[in-house]
């Protein structure tokens, strides 16, 4: 992984929160409760914004941005922060991903681990920050099982 990746910022991209995708996601995570009907504009489930990856061409993929070796990569942590009710179906969001932090740690079983924190900001049509996604990835060093 490239330690100089800190501060790298993706080009902005647009994400539409589509009802069909909201319903598909609802079913995929075995959500309790009824599915939204065609006239509903439900708030998205807490992890729905990970579908952002369907809305860029790879240029906002933090793993590619930082040159992380995917064969030694793991998803360690994920956080979503909402600055009000989560976006509703029908929302149009502008998204930008930046590499916020890269740091190294020694693993319990030997070998270094490199951590990367990537933050995606989601803004509404008025430019208001409505949500943030924080993804922590790890690249295991040589010597890891």
């Amino acid at each position, binding site marked *: 992984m490239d330690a100089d990746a800190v501060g790298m910022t993706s080009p902005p991209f647009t994400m539409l929160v589509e009802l069909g995708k909201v319903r598909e996601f609802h079913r995929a995570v075995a959500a309790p409760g009824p599915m939204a009907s065609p006239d509903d504009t*439900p708030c998205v489930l807490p992890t729905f914004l990970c*579908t952002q990856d369907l809305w860029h061409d790879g240029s906002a993929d933090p793993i590619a941005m930082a040159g992380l070796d995917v064969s030694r990569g793991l998803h360690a942590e*994920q956080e979503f922060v909402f600055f009000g009710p*989560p976006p509703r179906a029908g929302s149009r969001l502008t998204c930008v991903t930046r590499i916020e932090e890269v740091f190294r740690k020694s693993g319990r079983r030997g070998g270094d681990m490199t951590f990367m924190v990537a933050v995606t900001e989601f803004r509404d049509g008025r430019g208001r920050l409505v949500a943030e996604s924080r993804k922590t990835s790890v690249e295991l060093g040589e010597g890891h099982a």
Partner: protein
Amino acid sequence: MNARDIPVRPDPLVVGPVTRTDFVRYQGASGDMQPVHHDEELARRAGHPGPFSVGMYQGGVLGAWVAGWFGAENVRRFRLRFKERVWPGDVLTCTGEVATWRRGDEGLEVDLELRCTRQNGDVAVEGRAMCVVPRARNG
């Protein structure tokens, strides 16, 4: 919703036994098509006994359970730490409880501690969340 109607420790949600189809359905829904989660040959070549779940699948199940507890519109923060892998045939149980609460700008702010465990007790995902109970309706 009224604060006193919200359980401090709701009934657990049991999901499964989970299947490779569940993983693939989640992959399609999320857009994360990493082949190690569905391609048997590739998973074995990479040293795994077979395909295992995307962490965000069980993370998403836990998130949906929290949304059912407080209402999706009331979730303000949701954090996951991935601990153990989930395999086809696993039965997942989501549990959680209210850790603390306080008065905030929007009403009551409630911190939750959450877990998604496998049938053998292994914690697959550890979670924390903050949900609000809006002032106008928190009785």
